[in-house]
């Protein structure tokens, strides 16, 4: 088990038993200090000035790109688009690649366990292009239905987009196997890495997808920055969805030409301070080692699953064993509404998420409008889980179940 709580100032400041890291993670001191240090010293706009500060800023901004590439095993920093986060990355692919290449009747294959960020952008481009949406379901035990997936591939989808780890069920689909099968049929493969990248070592070469998007803020980094990785040939096929400064090669009165990839996808002043924070987050995680992060996540997930399964009338939504799942654990307790649970737990400084988790189609499949969710990060420990369990027992008492 990791012991890194002292690295997180928010914990000393009273964050309590913070079990909502899947929504956004706490930040280690190293990230906060890196941003503060940078903003207070050599900060300037990037890719513009010829003066010293701007050159230094530009180098640090570009450093985030190369660290991102390194972190996910990309062969070249030019395959990394720095953007606002997972949502923006997926929108760029849907509108910029899908908008260019989808034709009426083309199929977009998603899964029912996607976050709205990997559904709505595809609905938008489907409406624009006449493409149609299709969905793979889940099994009884909360995993992706792999047989269903294979059957849906027979229909020759043009795009296959799926999450690397469900933010509700916690299940981790076999991304490499799915990507290989989908690419074999000629589909573009897009992976939502928002939950996977912070918790497991990820190597884009071995996953073999075309695009992978993730967010800095779920990865111990700042808000406002994230990564869209793409195969260079796919990035070349993608239209920029925003025009403006930075993204052009030349501008005439009536037309412009684009800068080379990845810069053509980064219109306007980028999140420079956040990029420095993102680099610090990669450094911090690499120092721990993503294998250790994954082991910590697995150990605590197993502990939480075991403790939760001992609570009377508690129902876990998602895989009941630690196999092929990560530390986002959704549950309900008897007839106690998840919002009531969250209020009761909050009185014990236990923060859990309650609601639909931006996955309404999945909640409909599960047949419930809301669940409570506890999620794990590097700073989570057994005591956080024990506090959760005590809070749940209190809730049972209050509601007489």
């Amino acid at each position, binding site marked *: 088990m990791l012991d890194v709580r002292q690295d997180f100032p928010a914990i000393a400041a009273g964050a309590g038993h913070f079990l909502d890291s899947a929504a956004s993670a706490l930040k280690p001191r190293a990230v906060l200090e890196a941003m503060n240090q940078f903003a207070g010293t050599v900060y300037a706009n990037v890719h513009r000035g010829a003066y010293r500060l701007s050159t230094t800023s530009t180098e640090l901004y570009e450093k985030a790109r190369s660290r991102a590439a390194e972190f996910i095993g990309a062969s070249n920093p030019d395959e990394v688009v720095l953007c606002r986060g997972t949502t923006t990355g997926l929108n760029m692919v849907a509108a910029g690649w899908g908008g260019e290449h989808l034709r009426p009747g083309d199929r977009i294959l998603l899964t029912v366990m996607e976050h709205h960020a990997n559904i709505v952008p595809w609905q938008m481009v489907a409406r624009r292009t006449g493409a149609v949406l299709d969905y793979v379901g889940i099994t009884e035990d909360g995993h992706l239905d792999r047989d269903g997936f294979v059957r849906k591939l027979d229909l020759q989808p043009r795009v296959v987009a799926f999450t690397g780890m469900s933010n509700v069920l916690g299940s981790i689909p076999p991304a490499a196997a799915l990507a290989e099968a989908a690419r074999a049929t000629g589909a573009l493969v897009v992976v939502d890495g928002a939950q996977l990248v912070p918790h497991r070592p990820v190597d884009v070469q071995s996953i073999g997808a075309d695009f992978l998007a993730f967010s800095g803020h779920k990865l111990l980094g700042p808000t406002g920055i994230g990564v869209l990785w793409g195969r260079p040939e796919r990035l070349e096929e993608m239209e920029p969805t925003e025009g403006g400064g930075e993204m052009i090669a030349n501008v005439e009165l009536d037309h412009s030409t684009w800068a080379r990839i990845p810069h053509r996808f980064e219109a306007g002043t980028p999140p420079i301070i956040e990029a420095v924070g993102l680099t610090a987050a990669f450094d911090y995680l690499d120092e721990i080692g993503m294998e250790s992060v994954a082991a910590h996540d697995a150990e605590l997930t197993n502990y939480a699953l075991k403790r939760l399964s001992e609570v009377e009338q508690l129902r876990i939504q998602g895989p009941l064993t630690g196999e092929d799942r990560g530390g986002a654990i959704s549950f309900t307790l008897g007839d*106690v*509404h998840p*919002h009531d649970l969250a*209020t009761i737990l909050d009185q014990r400084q236990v923060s859990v998420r309650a*609601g639909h988790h931006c996955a309404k189609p999945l909640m409909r499949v599960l047949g419930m*409008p809301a669940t409570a969710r506890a999620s794990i990060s590097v700073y989570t420990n057994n005591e956080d889980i024990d506090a959760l369990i005590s809070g749940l027992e*209190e809730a049972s008492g*209050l*509601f007489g179940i």
Partner: protein
Amino acid sequence: MALEELYREVILDHYRNPRNRTALEEPHAAAEGVNPLCGDEVTVELTFGGDVVAGVSVRGHGCSISQSSGSMMGEAIKGLDREAISVLSRRFQESLTSEDSNSESEFGELAALQGVRRYPVRVKCALLPWTTLDEALSA
């Protein structure tokens, strides 16, 4: 303890056995309320005999606070005229949102919801049926 103040027995009773759940055939006034933040939903339907409420239906799903509030609201407004309902609605909403409130006695069973005042994020749960009622009446 504070939580027992919030989850009083009468609240849990209305949550588990909500009153007036049956939809009305031809309501004279109706509205649907949603709390987009948490997804709680309430539907309010009313029929009138003259100016006085004759039939009430309050349905929905969500947390114990929003659903019990709706159930108690339905009971409280039966037999009241429009004017009395809007006075009750305004006074009740004020009692949950204003700084000082000591008007428990005037609300009968509904006073049980006063415990929610200590939980600012949950006040909107208790208000949802009432704002939906206001909407139904003003439509």
